[in-house]
């Protein structure tokens, strides 16, 4: 039996990535901001996942669940499932979570910080999803 919190994080992680891919065709400002970005973000939630990665290239976003990329630009390691839920529901700011150690960055940290606007913009659209 899969833990319900694990399942919630996995579904939400996929939903956020789906939302990002959809927002490109709905929000011209979002698409404009993706110009020039060429990166692979690996997401890992401690201790046992879920894991996924997101590729941003040519103003398109593609994601793969339950997958580890062999050469990510940077890896975001989220402390635990509760933190992942809070981040993906925009209850806590991802940059703040990096600053206080709830998200650890491996790889190109400067690029990671620069690209956090993607999560921020999604948070503006999805922050009050549950009403």
């Amino acid at each position, binding site marked *: *039996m*899969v833990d*319900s*919190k694990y*399942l*919630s*994080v*996995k*579904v*939400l992680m*996929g*939903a*956020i990535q*789906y*939302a990002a891919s*959809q*927002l490109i065709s*709905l*929000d011209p400002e979002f698409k404009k901001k993706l110009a020039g970005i060429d990166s692979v973000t690996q997401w890992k939630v401690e201790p046992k996942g879920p894991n996924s990665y997101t590729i941003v290239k040519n103003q398109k976003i593609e994601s793969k669940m339950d997958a580890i990329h062999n050469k990510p630009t940077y890896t975001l390691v989220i402390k635990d499932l509760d933190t992942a*839920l809070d981040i993906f529901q925009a209850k806590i700011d991802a940059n703040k979570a990096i600053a206080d150690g709830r998200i650890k960055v491996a790889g190109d940290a400067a690029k990671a910080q620069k690209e956090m606007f993607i999560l921020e913009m999604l948070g503006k*659209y*999805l922050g009050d*999803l*549950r*009403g």
Partner: protein
Amino acid sequence: MSVKEIIQTKVLLYIMGKGLEEISTTNEEFKEEFSDYDATIQWTIADTVKMYMKVEGGKFTAFMDAVVDEPTVAFAVEDYAKAKEILTGAIDGTSAYMSGDLKMVGDMQAGMKMGQVTNFLTETLKELMGS
């Protein structure tokens, strides 16, 4: 619908579809309870956001942004705010159907079973759905 409403509705349908994909393959209780469920289920929100699910022996597969010919049962919600309440579990499907906010066309039995399925989903993903 505004961009925010479209994105939120897409994400809520994603959570339902992908959540059911996950649960129907990992949750033994679900598998036992819905093993005789076969149907194609179309969802349409405000005539704009669409998704369908194929169910074979209780196993769900979701197809985002897609329409199926001749679904077993088709659900439609015209009003975005009502759709949000239904899809987050804030109001249950039966009440929404009785009040006319949720329209159902096709096999009534398959439709009622979908209600049981979504109740199971909401309970399983309680960290996400907030129940």
